[in-house]
């Protein structure tokens, strides 16, 4: 798929999804670098958070991302047998399998959670994973179902308006103070 489609899709319905990506440093992050050096254009909806290994990724990250207004998440790392730390991704695979299944049971559309293996040499695959995730989540619409869980006072529920702007720095400041 090409980003042309995305923009047209964007035009179709005004909604642009926000997607948080948790990727491992050695394969997918480097693969995304390669996509850059190869100038592979892709949708701009994804924000990458770099981690050493998929083994480091805790389901809580994903839950938190949803809480903070992400419409979808991507989790990506080294292919089996390619893990820089030899077995981190195998353990991650089990953790995510269980998480994926239970979330689906609870009623979260699995298309909001993209899991993939993208190696350092698969810039193009990363492009496709990103575009595909964006198209899927765009089709699903905003994750209001999750945001609706937010307590009235917290500002993050609605696509971050000024409320968020004040709420979150305060929060972070508190975190530091404590």
């Amino acid at each position, binding site marked *: 798929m090409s980003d042309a489609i995305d923009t047209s899709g964007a035009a179709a319905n005004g909604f642009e999804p926000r997607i948080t990506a948790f990727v491992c440093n050695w394969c997918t992050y480097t693969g995304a670098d390669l996509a850059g050096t190869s100038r592979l254009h892709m949708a701009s909806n994804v924000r990458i958070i770099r981690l050493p290994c998929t083994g480091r990724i805790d*389901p*809580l990250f994903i*839950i*938190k991302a949803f*809480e903070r207004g992400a419409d979808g998440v991507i989790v990506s790392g080294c292919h*089996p*047998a390619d893990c820089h730390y030899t*077995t981190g991704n*195998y*353990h991650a*695979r*089990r*953790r*995510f*399998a*269980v*998480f*994926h*299944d*239970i*979330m*689906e*049971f*609870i*009623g*979260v*559309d*699995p298309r909001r959670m*993209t*899991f*993939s*293996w993208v190696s350092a040499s698969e810039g193009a695959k990363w492009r496709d*994973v990103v575009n*595909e995730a964006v198209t899927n989540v765009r089709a699903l619409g905003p994750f209001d*179902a*999750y945001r*609706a*869980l*937010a*307590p009235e006072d*917290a500002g993050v529920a609605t696509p971050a308006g000024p409320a968020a702007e004040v709420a979150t720095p305060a929060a972070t400041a508190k*975190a530091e103070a*404590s």
Partner: protein
Amino acid sequence: MNELRELARTLLTDGTVRVIIGWEAARRGARPVFVTDPADTDKLIFDTRCVHNLVTYLNPRRDNVAELGKIGLVVKGCDAKAVAGLLREAQLTRDDIVLIGVRCGGVLEEAELPEAVALSSENVAPRCYGCDNREPKLVDHLLGEAQPDPPRPIMTIDERVAALDARPLEERWAFWTEQFSKCVRCYACRQVCPLCVCERCVAEKSRPQWIESSAHPRGNMSWNITRALHLAGRCVDCGECERFCPVGIPLSLVNRKLQQIVAERYDYTVSDDPENPAPIGDYRLDDKQEFIK
């Protein structure tokens, strides 16, 4: 029953153990009892009202129990699985406890009765149906005569899970958000769980505060998912969390779903064999990964 009392008496008198933790009859059904005096062993009972999983008292964090000295514990099959869980996670030393296993034919769902009653498909605890460990193996003594299979409840947990699974995503989401929104974050589910033995629960970690502590739907969702995930491949299906939940969240459905997941993906069923490694923390090169692109 006499068998149990006899054994308890000898264990206490010959000093093998300092305390026997079992069940006693009380006005409103059975309740846990700590017997330290051989004379009191006649208090001990075991019948269909003995639903409590006493293994929760073995939690090393409960040092007030530890202070009593070496423990003799009465366990049903499901309880024995919990003991195995604690051994698996180095929370116990086998030699520090004496396990008195009782052959179990299932327990009541509503156990708060003055008298024990026979099990029927109306009153049986659904989780007992199809129990694979009605004669605990991981025990020092096994008491009671062989029991018949528990009756089939009107609707088994698997059927309820299946029914829920059959409904569309939105309805499932609606169902669970409604259930979880009832949660008052009393953490009874955690306190009673024989395997929730952390010194400091992740829910109480404040830097960072992964799980919002106030009882609103978002924090509750996060807490309940996390609780469930932490028990993936560990839950022994003793049903205590659901029984204790003051607002009646059907936690057994989530727990059972997790059991089905690990069974289906890693063909793992929790047993009372501590040598049998838990599925999370283990892996196979050919684990299913159909959900990964």
